[in-house]
Every structure is written in C-alpha cells, then in structure tokens.
C-alpha cells in the first residue's frame, strides 16, 4: 500500500492578510508561510494509516516554487517517507494542479491519494475532486473518518446536516475535513532526520502539462467593513428593533 499526499504552501492561518496597494492581489511580502492546515491533516492521516501497518510508504508532493521544499520537509518531519517537488514559479489553479498530480499519480501508482479539502488561501475546494475525475477514480471528500480495508475504503464525510458514509474501491482520492484528526507536533529529532530523507525535484515545464490559468484575477479588494451599530438599553428595545426596524423576526 502506497499513499500519496499533496501539500500546499500557504499563508499561515494566524496571519491577518492585507490586500496590496494596487488591489491586484493579497500582499504576501514577508508573510509567514506554512503547510495548509487541511493538508497537514492529510499527512497525519497517512502516517496513522502507516502506523497501523496498513501502508508501506508515504510520498509527499507539492507544487510551486523552490521554497515549497520547506513545506515538504515539514511533512517528512511528521513521518512521510519521501518528497517530490513539482517545481514551477507560475500560478497554478486547481485544474492545473490536478493535471500535475495526475502526472505524478501515473508515475508513482499509489493506492490512495489524500489531500486537504481546500487550501486556506484561494478557498477553492476543487483539486481532490478534479484529480479523481481525471484519474476516473472514486472520491471521498470532506472526510472525518477513514476506515481502510483490503482493496476498499469506507469514508465518513462531513455533509450539511450530518455525516455520510460511502464505500470506495481502491485506488481512490480522499480529501480531509477538520475533524479527521489532530495533527501531531514534529519531534525535534525527526525534523533533523527529515533533512536526510529523499526529496526529488522535477520541473513542471518539462512535463508538457498545460497549466495556463483559466481564470484571470481582475482585482482583489478588502470586504466592506461592518460598522458598529447602536447599543440598545433593554431586551424590550432589542426585540422592538428586530421586529420593526430590521424586520428579521
């Protein structure tokens, strides 16, 4: 059993982002970057599967500039076995990412691919679904529980209003939701060992994959700030305002 985990390098979730001066993008200069939290959950899940002796190898792949090596290293420090950077400085949108991942999947032939359900920068929530479509594999998105059996996997999914369990034949693609697990901290000796784990780099430009963006960002703006409303002095006044002024009850 071989598991491929895809990880994205994103602005750290603690960072309060700002739109740049010409409204063309979010200002990323000197901003702390980290592994996408949902992808960290994906790495953790793969490690737990391996620790339960249900997998032999975990490969971590990331797509982007050379700095993504750090992101891969952090996944290796958690316990993945080897890394692969599909290097490119171009913008990669979900469809392009899915095509690059398809290329990697075809080369590595994993039995299971685990990804975060979405990246906390573009919030697209598409890549896992797209990859499974391109591979013609089944998909288990927004997983809160993964139960791996021989040749099959039961995935419990977070859906609006509750949970749904589906059964997928392997190979399959799974995307993670928040409750799937709580990622561990990397042990310091493992951070040191991660430096010695294999990390291959391949240029996306050499694969011939068309990664041209299909969406052009025209502008990026700050959302309208809500301004403080009024203070009411009593519950009676509150109910009156909600009834007659706001008309929401």
């Amino acid at each position, binding site marked *: 059993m071989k598991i491929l985990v895809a990880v994205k390098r994103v602005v750290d979730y603690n960072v309060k982002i700002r739109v740049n001066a010409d409204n063309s993008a979010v200002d990323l200069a000197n901003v702390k970057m980290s592994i996408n939290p949902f992808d960290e959950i994906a790495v953790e899940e793969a490690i737990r599967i391996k620790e339960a002796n249900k997998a032999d190898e975990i490969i971590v792949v990331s797509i982007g500039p050379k700095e993504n090596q750090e992101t891969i290293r952090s996944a290796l420090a958690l316990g993945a076995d080897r890394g692969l950077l599909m290097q490119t400085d171009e913008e990669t949108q979900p469809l392009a990412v899915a095509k690059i991942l398809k290329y990697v999947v075809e080369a590595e032939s994993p039995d299971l691919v685990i990804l975060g359900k979405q990246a906390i920068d*573009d919030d697209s929530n598409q890549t896992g679904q797209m990859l499974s479509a391109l591979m013609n594999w089944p998909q288990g998105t927004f997983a809160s529980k993964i139960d791996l059996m021989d040749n099959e996997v039961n995935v419990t999914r977070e859906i609006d209003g509750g949970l749904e*369990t589906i059964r997928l034949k392997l190979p399959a693609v799974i995307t993670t939701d928040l409750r799937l697990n709580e990622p561990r901290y990397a042990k310091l000796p493992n951070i040191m060992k991660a430096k010695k784990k294999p990390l291959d780099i391949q240029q996306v430009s050499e694969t011939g994959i068309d990664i041209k963006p299909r969406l052009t960002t025209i502008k990026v703006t700050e959302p309208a700030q809500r301004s403080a409303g009024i203070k009411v002095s009593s*519950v009676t006044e509150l109910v009156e305002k909600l009834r007659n002024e706001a008309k929401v009850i």
Partner: protein
Amino acid sequence: MNTLVIAEHDNSQLKPATLNTVGAATKLDGEIHILVAGENCDTVIQSAAKITGITKVLAVDSENYTHALAENMALLVTEIADNYSHILTPATTTGKNFMPRIAALLDVAQISDITGIESIDTFIRPVYAGNALATVKSSDSIKLITVRGTAFEPAITDNNNAEIQTIESGDNFAQSQFESHQLTLSERPELTSAQVVISGGRGMGNGENFALLEAIADKLNGAIGASRAAVDAGYVPNDYQVGQTGKIVAPDLYIAVGISGAIQHLAGMKESKVIVAINKDEDAPIFQVADYGLVADLFDVLPELTELL
C-alpha cells in the same frame, strides 16, 4: 446561451439554497433550466417547475442519484453540459463535491462560492476565509459555478409552470457506493442554511447553559452555533463551531451571546445581514460589528428574550 441550475434536494423537497442559486442565475443571459436528479423525487420536480424564471425542468429519476454521489452526478451532467454557457449549483457540501468533478471532465475551471456576478464571465468570490474578495474572469466556454446562497436573493416559487422534460439516466460509477448516513436529528435548521443563528461563547460558562440558547432557537426556528473558545472549552461539539476554522454562516439574523468576537469568529459570521451582540463586556470587539448591541449579563437577558419572543 442558457444557464443550467443543478437543484439540491433530498428527494422530497428542494433545499432553499437552490432558490438563491436560481436567483443568481437570473443575473445572467438566456433561459434558465433546472436539473433535478434523484430517485422518487416527483414532488421536487413539481416544485422546481414552479420557480419563477425557470423555463425548463430536466428531470431524471434513477437510483443512481438517490444520494447525489459526485461520480454519478458528473457522468450525467457532462452529457448535457454542451447545451449551456453556465452551470450553477449551490456551494453546499453536495455541490462542492460534484461540481469540480464535472469541471475536470469538461476540462474547464470551476469558480467556487461566488458572492457576486459582474458580467456573464466575471464573478466575485471570497478568498482567505472572506478576508479578501477576488474578482475573476473566466476564459472557458462553459462556466461552472458554485453559488454562496446567502449572497443572492432567492427566486420566488409560486406562479410558474415550467416545461418538464425527462432525460435519460447516465451511467452508474461502480467503484463508489453509498453506505449510510447519520443526519443530526434536530428539529432545527442546519447551521449553514438557517435564517437565524444564535451562538454561544465562553461566556456561557458551561455546556448545560446552552439550553438557554435552545429556548430562543426554538422560538425563532434558528440553529445553534458556538465560538471556537466554547468548543475548545468542551461546552459543545466541534460541528457547532462558527468561524474561520469552523462553519461560515450568513443568516438574516445572527445573535452572538457571550462571545468576545475574535477575528477568527468574525470571519465566520460577519456576512450575516443583522448581527446582535449580547455581552457584559462593553469593550468586546463583537460590538464593533454588531448592528444591535446589548451590554448586559446574558443570564438575565436570555430568559427575558425567550419570554418576549
């Protein structure tokens, strides 16, 4: 060209977000068709035909669609996609599940969770958990879009009688099958689609006190939410969490009780139409986004509010 809306339903009734999605579709050119794929879903088909603005209902009744599995939905929609310039569906867990799959099969981008329509090819969507809004232009021939329901007015459902066209079922994707579901047995609406949400924070003191919120939610047919602090303190389960790492909600009325208003929480609820904050700390940041603020002890306020509603 025409627009196709893929309806979300549970085989017995349309989910409200479908109507908002039709509302969004009316901002585009051409006719609006609606696809109802399900099993024994005739009532849904009938109510879809009544939606103002719909000219045609595409109905398919097959066990392949009982649970709207992404694989089967994708195989079906790709068969008919060529007839449309736009395909829209609500940005719910169902729509988010199948729409990207359709997009990849059609080799087009998908535009997620739009909150505004600038023109037939240009859309506004929140990124970075709503801390920025991106205006994006699509160069694809078919635009596949998931729609944030709370951002668009719902279509009206009373006085239409659209043509109903039955279409053939697509193939069944054998490697994937539905096993079971455990839906939250609650009389209350689901958190992300409720029109009223009442959330408790650390100020609630413990889990038992959430009963005070339930009493109000019962009266307003609202859903119950919580801040991360309340979840971390173990008062309520994680799926109550509203915020950047929890659920994003935008109800007509959001009542924040004993919540200080960390940025993390605000990111999950600041798009609500009307925000009420009840907190005894008058400096709590939540008041900076609240339309109506009440500085008072929640344990005095909640029983009185329940009484008055």
